[in-house]
C-alpha cells in the first residue's frame, strides 16, 4: 500500500499526536515519510521533541517517599490490610 502524501500544514497540525504515539500506524508512517524529506517540518519536530523530553524530565519526585509509604501502610493496617 502506498504511503499517504501529507503537506506541511497537515503535519504541523498532527505533530504532537505523532510525538504522543496517538496516531494510526498508516498516518504515523505518512508523517515519518514527510519529516524525512521536509526541511521546514523536521526542525519543528526536533524542537517539539526536545520540549516534551524536558517537560518529562522536570517531574518532581516525592520528598519523603518512605515516610508516605509508612503512613499509608499504617492506615491500611488499621483498616485490616494484611499483606
Amino acid at each position, binding site marked *: 500500500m502506498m504511503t499517504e502524501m501529507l503537506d506541511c500544514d497537515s503535519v504541523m*497540525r498532527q505533530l*504532537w499526536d505523532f510525538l504522543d504515539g496517538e496516531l494510526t500506524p498508516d498516518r504515523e508512517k505518512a508523517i515519518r515519510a514527510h519529516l524525512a524529506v521536509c526541511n521546514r517540518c523536521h526542525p*519543528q519536530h526536533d524542537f517539539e521533541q526536545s*520540549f516534551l523530553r524536558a517537560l*518529562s524530565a522536570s517531574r518532581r519526585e516525592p520528598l*519523603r517517599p518512605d515516610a508516605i509509604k509508612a503512613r499509608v501502610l499504617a492506615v*491500611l493496617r488499621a483498616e485490616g490490610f494484611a499483606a
Partner: protein
Amino acid sequence: MYSQPWCDALNQGPLKRLIRKVIGAPSDLRTPDERFRDEALPHLPAVTRFAFSLTRDESDAEDLVQETYLRAFRAWDQFVQGSECRAWLFTICRHTYFRTSHREQRVVAYEDAELEALGAAALHTAAQADGLDDVFSRTEVMEAIRAAVDALPDPFREVVVLVDLEEQSYEDAARVLEIPKGTVRSRLFRGRRLLQERLIEHARDAGFARATQADVTEEET
C-alpha cells in the same frame, strides 16, 4: 478484609507453598490484599506526584495520598482486574481532592487543538529567529519548566501532568478527568503552547537569546 475461607486456606503457610511449588504461583491464588499490595502500592510515588500537582503543598499532598489509598482499599473489590490501576488511583485521588477541598472544577471554553498546534509552530519560528532552537535542552530551564507548570490554570495543568509527566495515554487521561478524549487533546495542546510561550519569554529575559542580525548591524553602524 476481603478474605474467603477457601482462599485463606489455600494461602496458609505450608499448603500455600506446596500449591505454588506444584502449579507455579498463579496470580488467582493471591488474596485481595496481596493483589492490592502488588498492583496498587507500587503506584504510591506516582499518586504522590499527582496529589502534589493538585494541592501544590507537600503536607496536603500526603494527607490526600493517605485518603486516596484508604478509599482505594475499601473499594478494591470494584477495581476491574487487568485495567489500568494507576489511572484508577488517579481518579480516586482527584475525586477525593475535589470533595475534600470543596473546589469547583473549572469549566473551560471550547478550544481548537489544531490551532494550538499551529500556534506552537509559530512560536518555534519566533524562537528560531532568537537563536533559541535548543532552549529546552539547557539544564537551566528545568526550574523554569516546573514553575511554568505550577502556574498553568488547573484544567490545563491536569492534562499536562497526566500525559506529559505521568505518561498516561489520551484515553486514560480522559477517563481520570471524566472528559472526552478530544477535550484532553485540546487542553493538552493549549497547556503546552502556554508553557512554551512562558519558557521562551523566560529564556529571552535570562539572556539566552542570541543577538539578531538586525541588532548586530545596528551596533556596527
